[in-house]
Structure formats: structure tokens, C-alpha cells
């Protein structure tokens, strides 16, 4: 029996239902709000969608994250210097929402929500058009209050699963979770190493282990950089594939080389999106 909150009319649920019908996985992209500046993020959100992104994890920058790798940490630092606060991130989302129904979740640390009050944060998030929140340092056991506050507004609190999470705990987490579960593919921080080459095997075993405990859509993240990686993750059974660090690096490199960031990012995303279909 699950004790899942009842969430109605949420874009994330519709997305995964559509992906099932289309027999494909969802492409989930992480982008740090305000990296390298707010204007770039504002311009890039539609570019991601036009080129096949299904869901955006909009990173709310935080100065002292735990378990972010150096690339995303540095992006957060740059974004904070560029003035990318939680309210400014919501401004970006609100503007994007005028012309788009692509699901967006806010991704970051718990403290920005906590200092404002969880209820006020939930209110602000739904008002701006978010579909969920992922607070990376909020453990499942402590998440009840925030989950209920979000669910009351039909927003998902997205939970994380790690390779070290034991099966009974996966089941417990899944039984209270909604939307999808973000499954971290390997031990380590964001943007480091990964299981390249054997990714498909790793994904198959890992996703298989979680599927045995959960009926929720599963998104695989960490170490996915290329269209080949996306293919491996999809063939391994993932319902969604998350790319983060590699996208930040793509933006950074295009900027540094003075190239058209929208064009470079668009092509990169299109490449990732070309490998989402499931083999018959």
C-alpha cells in the first residue's frame, strides 16, 4: 500500500504518460539559473524545449551545496554573483511559463526554502509555474511537511535514490513519492567519471533493482554526457535521462569561444533527444 499524496493535473505526470504512449524516454536537462547570467538562462529555456527537452531542472544557486561537483558548484558561484536568487529564478520561470507547458522543477538545496518558510516557498513556486521541487539535501525521513505543503498545491517533491540505497528503503521512499524518482547512477558527486562503456549494464541492473520496488517513472542521472550515453540509459530501462554537468560545460565552452550559445546548445540538445526511442 502506498501513502502517496493525491496530485492532480500536474505536467510531470502528463509528460511520463505521453512518453509511455510514444514508447520513449523523457529528456531531462539541468540548467543553473543565472549561469553565466540571468539573460542567458532566459534565452536558453525555450531553446531547450524547441530541441527536444521534455523537463527542465532549474537549479536555484546555493553557495554551499553538498555533493555538487566542481562544474555545477562553479556555475552556482557565477550565478550568485550575477544576482540569481530564488525570487529571480521564479521570475525567469514565470516569464517562460507564459509561452510554454514544459514541466519545470526547481532543483537545489533546502535552506533557501527553509529561511523563507516552507509554506511561503511552496506558494511562491506554484505561483511562478513550477511543477515540483527537488531539494538534494532533504532526506526522505524529514520530507513529510514539505511534501504535504507541495502536494496541497499539486506540486511534486521529487526524491533521490542512490546506488547505495537498500531495497527496503527504496520501497519505502517510492511508496510516498510522486512524479518520478531521480536515480543517481554512480557513487560520487555530479560531473565526475561515470560508468562510460558499461553504462547500459549498470543502468539495466540498477534500474531493474529499483523497478522491483517501485512503479514510478525512473530518471537516471550522473555521468550522462553524450547521445551514446542517452542511448545506453534508455536501453538499460530508464524512463527519463538527466544531463546536467555536460550541458553547463557546453554553455561555458560556447561562451568562452565566442560562439552563438543558443545555436550550440540547441544542436547539443537535439543530439541527446535523438536517442530517446525505445527499441520495439
Amino acid at each position: 500500500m502506498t501513502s502517496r499524496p493525491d496530485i492532480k493535473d500536474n505536467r510531470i505526470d502528463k509528460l511520463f504518460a505521453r512518453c509511455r504512449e510514444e514508447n520513449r524516454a523523457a529528456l531531462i536537462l539541468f540548467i543553473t539559473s543565472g549561469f553565466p547570467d540571468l539573460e542567458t538562462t532566459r534565452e536558453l529555456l525555450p531553446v531547450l524545449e524547441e530541441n527536444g527537452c521534455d523537463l527542465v531542472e532549474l537549479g536555484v544557486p546555493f553557495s554551499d551545496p553538498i555533493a555538487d561537483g566542481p562544474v555545477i558548484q562553479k556555475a552556482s558561484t557565477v550565478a550568485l554573483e550575477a544576482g540569481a536568487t530564488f525570487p529571480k529564478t521564479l521570475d525567469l520561470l514565470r516569464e517562460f511559463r507564459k509561452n510554454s507547458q514544459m514541466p519545470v522543477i526547481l532543483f537545489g538545496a533546502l535552506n533557501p526554502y527553509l529561511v523563507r518558510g516552507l509554506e511561503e516557498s511552496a506558494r511562491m513556486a506554484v505561483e511562478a509555474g513550477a511543477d515540483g521541487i527537488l531539494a538534494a539535501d532533504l532526506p526522505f525521513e524529514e520530507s513529510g511537511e514539505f511534501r504535504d505543503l507541495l502536494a496541497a498545491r499539486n506540486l511534486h517533491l521529487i526524491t533521490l535514490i542512490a546506488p547505495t540505497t537498500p531495497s527496503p528503503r527504496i520501497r519505502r521512499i517510492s511508496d510516498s513519492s510522486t512524479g518520478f524518482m531521480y536515480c543517481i547512477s554512480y557513487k560520487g558527486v555530479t560531473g565526475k567519471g561515470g560508468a562510460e562503456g558499461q553504462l547500459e549494464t549498470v543502468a539495466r541492473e540498477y534500474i531493474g533493482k529499483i523497478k522491483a520496488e517501485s512503479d514510478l517513472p525512473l530518471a537516471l542521472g550522473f555521468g550522462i554526457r553524450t547521445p551514446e550515453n542517452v542511448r545506453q540509459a534508455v536501453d538499460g530501462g530508464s524512463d527519463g535521462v538527466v544531463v546536467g554537468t555536460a550541458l553547463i560545460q557546453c554553455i561555458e565552452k560556447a561562451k568562452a569561444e565566442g560562439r552563438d550559445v543558443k545555436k550550440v546548445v540547441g544542436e547539443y540538445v537535439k543530439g541527446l533527444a535523438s536517442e530517446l526511442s525505445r527499441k520495439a
Partner: protein
Amino acid sequence: MTDAATGNPLPDAKGWFGEFGGRFVPPQLEPVLDEIAEAFERYRDDEDFNREYEYYLRQFVGRPNPLYLCDKLTRQQGGAKIYLKREDLNHTGAHKINNTLGQVLLAKRLGKKRIIAETGAGQHGVATATACALFDMECIIYMGEIDTERQALNVFRMELLGAKVVAVKRGTRTLKDAVDEALEDLITNYETTYYMLGSAVGPHPYPAMVKHFQCMIGREAREQILAAEGRLPDAVVACVGGGSNAIGLFAPFYDDRSVRIIGVEPAGKGLDTGEHAASITLGKPGIIHGFKCYTLSDENGDPLPVHSVAAGLDYPGVGPEHSFYKATGRGEYVSVTDREALDAFVELARVEGIIPAIESAHAIAYALKLAAEMEPGQLIVVNLSGRGDKDVRQVAGMVEAGEYTLEVRGAMA
């Protein structure tokens, strides 16, 4: 449940002291912390473990250290008797070694061969490297590149003890970046690696464990004052950064409701200047580095930059148990400025022939004020958490730069 060693309440199973503490970490870290928590629960009251720990505390650290009556300072202040708990006389010169020895013994029982730690000024790094040398552990110390330059002598000390010091080049190249890199190492290598945390902060079980490995300070002080005076002190005083020396002194007095518990925070250049690290005095409840406590943060929840003349007190959060003491009224938390701490640093050297760590000088500064306001015959126990040799060069530099003036006593007469 209460702690047999201190008599006061333990955190609950999830590490909560009232509304403070807990564990706010990504899922990759949860099993790592569970393993440490289970080991701590298994060995905290284990006879063999404690026999070995106590042997090294006695023979290697030199415990119990004295509770010293500052007769001259007491007469000078004209009030309460001032006793110092002499943690500065421990091997390596501070209370830090109590904790690193306890944790290294735990790591040994977990079968870990590799110890990692972060350090700011280098004191915890040196204490960690010392324990690792003694127990043949590979030792990796993460230290911000800027800190390695500021504390070159401590880097050499750690290397002398066989540690590898990694100069962290990311971000602000200071303590918080060292923490990031150490956590990254832990998340990647947890099967072989133990993370040695130096203060009573961080996610559960660290605050409870560090307290456990520091509370012999208060246990000894309690016995010693009873032996010397036949009664409990009226107040116990300690400096609070993360708060490990303070909780070590305070916890065994928790149930002695007649004893005032007073923590002294760094007011830096002044509480109204923005350049301080008085997390309890001016902070709000929030999350920092995986636990809930009083924090100094901006409106977006990002920790604020902090300042103290004492590198060991320079932290925008504070241990959860101190937060709990403050919220429940069991503890009083006050602050003294850089200047007051420096004056106390000099005063203790001149009057008692003891150069205190500049961190401990914060506690001394407040105790001097407090003693003068109290009645003769009343008793204050102050934790002299470390010796000041490490600070002599910094203070000399401040004198040279005209930032601090040494009054030459008696020269005018």
C-alpha cells in the same frame, strides 16, 4: 534515553536535539553516516574500546590535566574564584586530540585504513595527523590553498607526522572548499575511508559523537572542583565556534541546574559591524553543512561571510546542542570582540604566565568580566581549550602593523 557518561539527554535516533541537528545530506551520504552511527552506538560503552581509549588519553595525551586556580587573577578581579581547565597541557596543545583519538579508534574497528579530514587553521589537521601516525593510518588533510599559505608551519607539521596535505584550489580556496573536496572524497571512497570531523557540528552522528569524545573535560573538571572546593561551580565558561570544547565542558554539568552554562561567541570587530561570527547571538535557525542550527545567512539562505581574530571560531553555524541549550534557556550565550580577546590573551600571559589560544582567550575575557561582578567565594570554571603558541606570530604581526598595541605594564611608573 540519557547518556551514562554525562547524565544529560542524547539526541533522538535521528540526531535531533529538540528542533536542532538532524541530518540533511544527499542520499549518497546516508549509508556512510549510518555505518558510522552504528559503530559509534556499538562501541561507545564497549569495555575494550574504552580501556584502549583511556589508556591513550592517559599515556599519550597526559590526562587528566589540572584544574588550575588562578590565584592572582582572582585577587586582581576581586570577585569569584577563577579556575582554568588546562586542555592546553594536552599533547599537541589543545582539546582537539581527545576527539581525534576516539574517532581513529572507531575507524580502526570499522576496518578503515584511510582517514580524511578538513582543516582551516590547521589545528584539527594536526590532531588528526597525530592520531593517524600513532595508529598507522593513511592520512589525507584537505586545506584551502589560501589557508595553506597562511598556516605554512601547520602544513609542515602535518607532513612531518606523515599526512598528505591537499591544497584545495577551487572556489574561495578556504575551509568551506576544503569541506567540499573532503566530502567528495568520502562519497567516492567511503568503503575504505573514514571522515574525521573536528567539531561538534555536521550531520548526525557527528555532533553526538564529538561530544562523547570531549566530555571527559567536564567530567574531570566536575570531580576536580568537588575535590578542591567541596561543591559545584557557580558558572562554567567556554568559547564557542563549532563548540566542541564547550560542549565537552558543559554536558556533564547539564543536570546541575545551579551551574550557569555560558558560551562565549566571537563578536569580531563588533556585533554591529557585520564582521563577526556570533551565530547564536545574531543568527536564525537554518541548515548549514548537513544539520540544523543557528546560522548566519542572507535572505536566500546562503551562509554569510564571517570574521574572527580566532580562526578556530570563524564559522557561520554552531553545534546543534548549543542551539538547543540556547533555545531552551539552559545555556547563556554571550560574545566578546577581537580586541577584548586580545587583551585577555595578554592579561593571562602576564598575570598567570599562561599564553592561551586566541580562541580560548574569548572565554577568559568574559570570565574576567563575570568574576568581577560575582561575589568572592563564588566559583567559575573556564575551559582553557588550547595553548597560544600557534597565535604568537599572528599577534606579533598585528602589533607590528599597528592593529593592536601592547601596553608595557609598569614602564610608566
